[in-house]
């Protein structure tokens, strides 16, 4: 083995696989993605008896069929990377179910060591397992473990190494009998496969034959491109299929599953598994909890309570470190202003880089806390119950029970953030529902849109602030659900993904697991989003800075200033007049810049929704971060810097402006709620899906927002003014 070895950890979801991986590798983990998909690839390195062991944590899967991305990835790693050994982690309390995956590893022939995990819980439930007997019947080493406490991990690693050495990389596929009909077909197919060496460089011949009988989409597709005996194999499968349908009224894949479970049962019945208590006598804590937590009336009430509390905690606790980061970047900005001489470089560093990156880093505490709590809810098993309770409603709109969380995190109860919201779509296992959720989650009124709404409400609808805010939230939900429905019945059409999901037993998550999980996501955000975001902030800064005012215009402002300085009026008045000129100059500069020209360019079209060039610039700036809308308004209305938290002067200014009325305000609220997500969200979306979909959502949401804003303005002009 030359002092190195690769061990793949495999197992069902909720088998304690990740906990065991954390216990084995500790903090020495590397997280990446499998190319082209969002399944995470985790690896860690440990040293044992002078052997450097690379531990690969395979995604959790129930089977090696081609149902989910996780299963495909697990299969691919096994056959393409050929790890020295697979450690299959099975939950001792659910042995029968979990051995189904193990049997498929034996059929593949790869060397396997079985980790009988959660032996402590099995003991408590009165489940007795004769692991020595199981080992001899399965013909593979079996090690009892308790992942939470790390019990048995040393022995597990040692036995895995020994077994790998003993097998020396030789695969020994287990041959299971699938009854007379299938066995004949399998033997026939194996002959053809071996003669043509069809895919035998990757899989054992019998495995290929089995996958053909199981109608495995991936194997069938790659077989067709290879040619060879593919055609003949499909004919044999077709004949067998018809024969089995006629004689047994079933399909080959069902028969194969029956025989696999039959084999598992026959092994367990040979005095391997015994229960001290019958099912009725067992005290099932999870069942008791479920009778309360998923109760018809109490269940939903508790769920809303939990979600609301989580949300409150995130934003109240998150505010504190957010404040520290804000002060840190504020201090950095001031220091840079002091050190770097005034001019373009200073402007680039302060307004472009520090403000841009600072705005992004400000989200980090929010994301961290949000994921701490989401990890806790996921690992404890409660998240699966939330999906279970909400599935019926969300399904109407082409979504999935698991879509609820991203919506709420994005601001579904007012004032969330779409960045962690989009990241939370990871809990969705089904790609189509995930995409629909991902595109519509940014409609929610996130914390950064709130100042814009507050500004406009204060200016035009101050008499019923609370009602309008509530209506905005309601409108956001309605749009998100309706657009999901629209998308799911047009471009992301497809049958709903089955809701065949395990409700894992409730467990107290391990602190290590929750911390590692959250840290990974936060770090990914900082690293990946950070680079792109830096580039875009510089770009936006440039758009709002260049080209500068032409010489004569600038000198005119300078001359005005000098004239005032030289005039006879008192100091205080002079100061006020100079500030006014500064603001006028800023306004003129902005109008002259690329962003200003874009704003003016779109004015003829945006007029339909009542937006003038100033609003357009603010909206362009809002693409960087929605907070920017209010501050850009400040510059465009030549008020100088406006603090988004305190915009009362701006709101009276807007209220007094003849270009503004209730209809304009309404149209702008609608547009800000729906238009392109901020670029941090877009980058996150691209990472969770693809750049194509991220761009689609940018364009689609903007078009939708504009369309509805025009309607709001035109209808509003008739009734409100």
């Amino acid at each position, binding site marked *: 083995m030359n002092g190195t070895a690769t061990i793949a950890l495999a197992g069902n979801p909720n088998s304690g696989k990740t906990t065991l991986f954390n216990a084995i590798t500790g903090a020495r983990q590397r997280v990446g993605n499998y190319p082209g998909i969002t399944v995470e690839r985790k690896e860690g390195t440990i040293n044992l008896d002078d052997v450097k062991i690379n531990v690969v944590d395979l995604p959790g899967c129930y089977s090696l069929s081609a149902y989910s991305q996780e299963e495909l990835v697990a299969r691919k790693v096994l056959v393409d990377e050929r790890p020295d050994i697979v450690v299959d982690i099975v939950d001792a*309390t*659910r042995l029968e179910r979990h051995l189904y995956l193990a049997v498929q590893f034996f059929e593949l022939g790869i060397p396997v060591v079985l980790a009988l995990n959660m032996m402590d819980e099995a003991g408590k439930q009165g489940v007795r397992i004769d692991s020595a007997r199981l080992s001899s019947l399965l013909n593979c080493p079996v090690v009892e473990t308790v992942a939470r406490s790390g019990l048995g991990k040393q022995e597990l690693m040692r036995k895995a190494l020994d077994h790998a050495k003993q097998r020396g990389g030789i695969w020994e596929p287990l041959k299971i009998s699938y009854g007379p009909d299938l066995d004949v077909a399998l033997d026939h197919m194996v002959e053809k496969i071996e003669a043509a060496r069809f895919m035998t460089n990757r899989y054992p011949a019998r495995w290929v034959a089995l996958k053909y009988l199981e109608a495995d989409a991936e194997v069938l597709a790659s077989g067709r491109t290879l040619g060879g005996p593919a055609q003949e194999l499909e004919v044999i499968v077709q004949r067998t299929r018809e024969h089995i349908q006629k004689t047994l009224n079933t399909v080959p*894949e069902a028969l194969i*599953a029956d025989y696999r479970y039959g084999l598992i049962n026959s092994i367990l019945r040979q005095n391997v598994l015994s229960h001290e208590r019958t099912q009725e006598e067992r005290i099932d804590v999870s069942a008791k909890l479920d009778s309360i937590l*998923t109760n*018809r009336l109490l269940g939903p009430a508790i769920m809303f309570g939990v979600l609301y509390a989580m949300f409150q905690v995130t934003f109240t606790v998150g505010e504190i470190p957010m404040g520290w980061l804000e002060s840190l970047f504020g201090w950095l900005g001031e220091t840079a202003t002091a050190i770097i001489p005034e001019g373009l470089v200073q402007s680039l560093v302060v307004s472009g880089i520090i403000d841009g990156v600072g705005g992004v880093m400000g989200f980090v505490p929010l994301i961290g806390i949000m994921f701490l709590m989401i990890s806790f809810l996921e690992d404890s098993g409660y998240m699966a119950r939330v999906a279970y309770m909400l*599935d019926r409603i969300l399904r109407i709109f082409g979504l999935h029970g698991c879509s609820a969380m991203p919506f709420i995190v994005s601001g579904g109860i007012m004032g969330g953030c779409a960045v962690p919201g989009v990241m939370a779509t990871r809990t969705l296992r089904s790609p189509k529902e995930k995409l629909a959720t991902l595109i519509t989650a940014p409609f929610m009124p996130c914390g950064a849109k709130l100042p814009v709404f507050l500004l406009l409400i204060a200016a035009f609808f101050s008499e019923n602030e609370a009602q309008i805010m509530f209506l905005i939230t309601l409108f956001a939900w309605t749009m998100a659900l309706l657009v999901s429905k629209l998308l799911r019945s047009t471009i992301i059409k497809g049958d709903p993904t*089955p809701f*065949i999901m*395990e409700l894992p037993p409730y467990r107290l998550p391990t602190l290590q697991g929750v911390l590692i999980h959250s840290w990974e996501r936060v770090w990914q955000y900082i690293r990946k989003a950070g680079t792109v975001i830096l580039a875009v902030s510089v770009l936006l800064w440039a758009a709002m800075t260049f080209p500068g005012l032409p010489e004569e215009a600038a000198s005119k402002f300078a001359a005005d200033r000098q004239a005032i300085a030289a005039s006879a009026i008192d100091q205080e008045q002079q100061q006020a007049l100079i500030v006014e000129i500064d603001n006028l100059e800023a306004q003129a500069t902005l109008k002259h810049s690329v962003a200003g020209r874009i704003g003016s360019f779109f004015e003829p079209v945006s007029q339909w929704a009542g937006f003038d060039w100033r609003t357009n610039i603010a909206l362009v700036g809002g693409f960087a971060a929605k907070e920017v809308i209010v501050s850009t308004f400040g510059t465009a209305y030549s008020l100088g810097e406006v603090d988004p938290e305190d915009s009362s002067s701006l709101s009276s200014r807007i209220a007094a402006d003849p270009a503004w009325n209730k209809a304009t305000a309404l149209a702008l609220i609608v547009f800000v709620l729906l238009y392109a997500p901020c670029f941090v969200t877009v980058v996150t979306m691209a990472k969770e899906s693809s750049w194509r979909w991220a761009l689609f959502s940018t364009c689609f949401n903007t078009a939708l927002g504009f369309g509805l804003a025009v309607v709001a303005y035109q209808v509003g002009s008739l009734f409100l003014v």
Partner: protein
Amino acid sequence: MQKSLRTLGVHEKARITSITACGEMGRRLRDMGLVTGTEVEVVGRAPLKDPVALRLRDFTLTLRNNEADCIMIEKMEEKS
């Protein structure tokens, strides 16, 4: 008499006689341990009566009513 799993009430037990689903869903059902002969018990229903939670092979599984339609069962007598 053949009935679908949808008709099974909470806390009732049944044995699966056949699964009519094919393709992706059939594969998923089998992978999760729903094969002919398996004993299942309905342990609960979501607040809106759908999906349903089942207990089989020492674990709990949820599925929607329209997915339960593909699973044919025979009811088992209550042990009194």
